[in-house]
């Protein structure tokens, strides 16, 4: 690497704008400028120094903040486009059935919907190009930061107290003029700046007062936080780092928790509660009346179990871990897992009560209740009287293709049907009938499977009542990256606060070697107003040359106006 040797004797890396030590402008551009560009202290950004190979070109591409801003803008615009229509996981159609998704968009949003779907915007945030954009942003953040932080650090470390006059003159805040005792002024100014919590260095008839240099690292700290966050998001994709499962749990049911092996959940009951216009919710009366009804609470009371030490799945050798009331915003947590109340279904059939009735006299011989999740084989109703379940179809198919099919479509009791054998002292042989919910009983002879001969029975079962239970839709999550994401977020916040709420301020005061005048210059990376206030405060007690803010044209005009 060729070095640029400054007149002050300091060797600067190639590409340096301002001498790291004395601040003399080195590049043509810097020499010509009125106010020097103080970004990165005029140091040589490493990216700018090589442009030969393809690797360097790619590197430099990502090192450019302009490129970074473009990536941000593209992400911003595409994200906005993704909100024009609902994403596929937010519509009322199963998101994995392409044909239905396509139909949904066309039906609801016409030709625009079709185009939106065809372009894949219905699942934009998971698309490969969106992920690549986010990845490129990450790369841009890393490369651009690395390329800047190192030279900036070196440059701030190497700065000398005494700067060259050409550097001073090119600062935004600059003043020059004679004072009675320059050395005394420098000393006093040093003391005054110390009182304002500046770090002050005095050497060679020059003073440097510096404050909050650490705020310069803010951007790099917050970028580190962002990268940690993005790494966390990336790790979630690895198998085992992130569990996302769902389960439906009926009241009274105990089930293994998917994704959390060895743990079981039992529902003791689901509660849906609305706000009540009377009583303590009276203050909400108007709002409730306008809305009709407002839900106050969804709650599933659960018991968490786990396999006993050494117990195998299926053995049901369990021990209770805890009881908990899962409500929205208060998930059940255990062993890194969280279980959330997400959905519910009310009133699934759970039991049916029948009476055995003599068709002629309509006398009841007794009642029995069938638990649909665990029906019994035989219900005794008295001496020599019982009802036997020959078969049970939770979701009875009934007639299909003109033929009676004794079968069930699903294991869920959507449409229960039974084949009963009714035995009474008068009919010790038993009569059989097929009872389907909501339909007249079919009196049949099922002795020979397949042929369903209609017969005439003396007895029948009569449906009396149904019991129902509710189902809770629960989501099971485990996210090992959460803490990483949180750490990333915290580091980002520290960095962004560090860079935003503090400013790196520097004031240089030095005696001009030739004229003996005092030169004063000030620089801050942001918040010039406060820097001016600091200097003005010092200038109240210490004789200093007056200065001007050369970016503030109006101020200059007004000051000139005062002179007139």
């Amino acid at each position, binding site marked *: 690497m060729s070095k640029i040797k400054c007149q002050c004797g300091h060797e600067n890396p190639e590409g340096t704008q301002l001498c790291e030590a004395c601040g003399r402008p080195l590049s043509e551009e810097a020499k010509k400028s009125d106010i020097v560009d103080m970004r990165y202290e005029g140091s040589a950004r490493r990216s700018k120094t090589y442009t030969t190979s393809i690797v*360097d070109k790619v590197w430099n591409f990502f090192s450019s903040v302009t490129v970074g801003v473009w990536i941000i803008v593209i992400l911003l615009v595409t994200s906005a486009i993704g909100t024009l229509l609902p994403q596929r996981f937010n519509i009322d159609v199963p998101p994995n059935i392409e044909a239905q998704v396509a139909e949904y968009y066309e039906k609801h949003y016409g030709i625009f919907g079709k185009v939106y779907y065809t372009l894949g915007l219905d699942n934009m945030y998971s698309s490969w190009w969106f992920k690549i954009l986010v990845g490129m942003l*990450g790369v841009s953040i890393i490369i651009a930061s690395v390329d800047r932080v190192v030279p900036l650090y070196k440059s701030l470390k190497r700065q000398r107290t005494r700067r060259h006059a050409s550097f001073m003159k090119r600062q935004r805040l600059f003043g020059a003029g004679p004072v009675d005792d320059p050395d005394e002024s420098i000393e006093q100014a040093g003391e005054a700046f110390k009182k304002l919590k500046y770090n002050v260095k005095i050497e060679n008839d020059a003073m440097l007062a510096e404050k909050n240099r650490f705020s310069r690292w803010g951007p790099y700290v917050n970028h580190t936080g962002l990268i940690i966050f993005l790494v966390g998001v990336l790790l979630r*994709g690895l*198998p085992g780092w992130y569990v996302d*499962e769902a389960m439906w749990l009926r009241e009274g049911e105990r089930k293994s928790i998917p994704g959390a092996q060895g743990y*079981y959940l039992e529902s003791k009951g689901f509660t849906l509660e609305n706000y009540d216009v009377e009583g303590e919710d009276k203050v909400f009366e108007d709002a409730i009346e306008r809305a009709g009804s407002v839900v106050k609470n969804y709650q599933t009371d659960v018991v968490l179990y786990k396999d006993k030490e050494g117990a195998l*799945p*299926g053995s049901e050798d369990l021990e209770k871990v805890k009881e908990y009331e899962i409500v929205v915003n208060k998930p059940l947590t255990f062993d890194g897992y969280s279980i959330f109340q997400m959905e519910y279904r009310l009133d699934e059939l759970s039991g049916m009560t029948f009476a055995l009735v003599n068709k002629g006299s309509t006398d009841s011989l007794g009642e029995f209740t069938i638990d649909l999740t665990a029906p019994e084989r035989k219900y005794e109703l008295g001496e020599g009287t019982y009802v036997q379940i020959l078969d049970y179809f939770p979701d009875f198919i009934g007639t299909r293709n003109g033929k009676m099919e004794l079968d069930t479509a699903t294991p869920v009791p959507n449409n229960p049907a039974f084949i009963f054998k009714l035995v009474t002292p008068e009919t010790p042989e038993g009569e059989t009938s097929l009872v389907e919910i909501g339909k007249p009983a079919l009196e049949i002879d099922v002795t020979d*499977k397949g042929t369903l001969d209609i017969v005439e029975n003396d007895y029948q079962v009569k449906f009396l009542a149904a019991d129902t239970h509710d189902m809770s839709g629960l989501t099971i999550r485990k996210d090992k990256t959460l803490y990483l994401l949180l750490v990333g977020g915290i580091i980002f916040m520290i960095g962004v606060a560090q860079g935003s709420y503090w400013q790196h301020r520097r004031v240089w005061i030095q005696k001009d070697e030739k004229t003996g005048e005092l030169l004063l210059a000030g620089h801050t990376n942001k918040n010039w107003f406060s820097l001016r206030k600091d200097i003005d405060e010092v200038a109240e007690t210490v004789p200093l040359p007056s200065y001007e803010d050369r970016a503030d044209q109006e101020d200059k005009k007004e000051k000139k106006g005062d002179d007139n």
Partner: protein
Amino acid sequence: MNNERKANKKKKRSIIRGVALAIFAIVILVSLTLTPGKQKGLKPGDMAPDFELVDLDGNTHRLSDYRGEGVFLNFWGTWCAPCKREMPFMEKQYQTFKDEGVHILAVNVKESDLKVDSFRRSYQLSFPIAIDKTEAVKDAYQIKPLPTTILIDPDGKIVEIVQDEMNELEIKNYMEMIQPK
């Protein structure tokens, strides 16, 4: 001399940059293939998770007790049509292979005793049938569709996972596959 050092340094820097860029590219490409929330899933070659179930006759079956013998582990439901179709074939092959060191265990996923018992009677099945009441075994094997059949060799390793209906010949071949040599 100076030039040489400069060239070396430049070369070194290019290499570092190249490696860094390559790593970034790989990370991004790998991330494209990942879907958060996917479980690892069992695959042939894995050890079959041990479990313990009681069959309809009250006999306890613990997978690890069958070490040294093949296990034909079938997950099914009475409502599932392909399950019903393959049951008679399984029964037939069971008669041949039960003395050849192959066990069949048909695990019904959470149905009522009455329903499963009625089913067994009407299909006249003699191999052991157990009901996975809490779905713990189903979850341990991460079973999605029914029927799914897991073929476990005498060492307790999964040989094959069949997520489909099988015909008689396939059943026979699978049983031969896990038969102790």
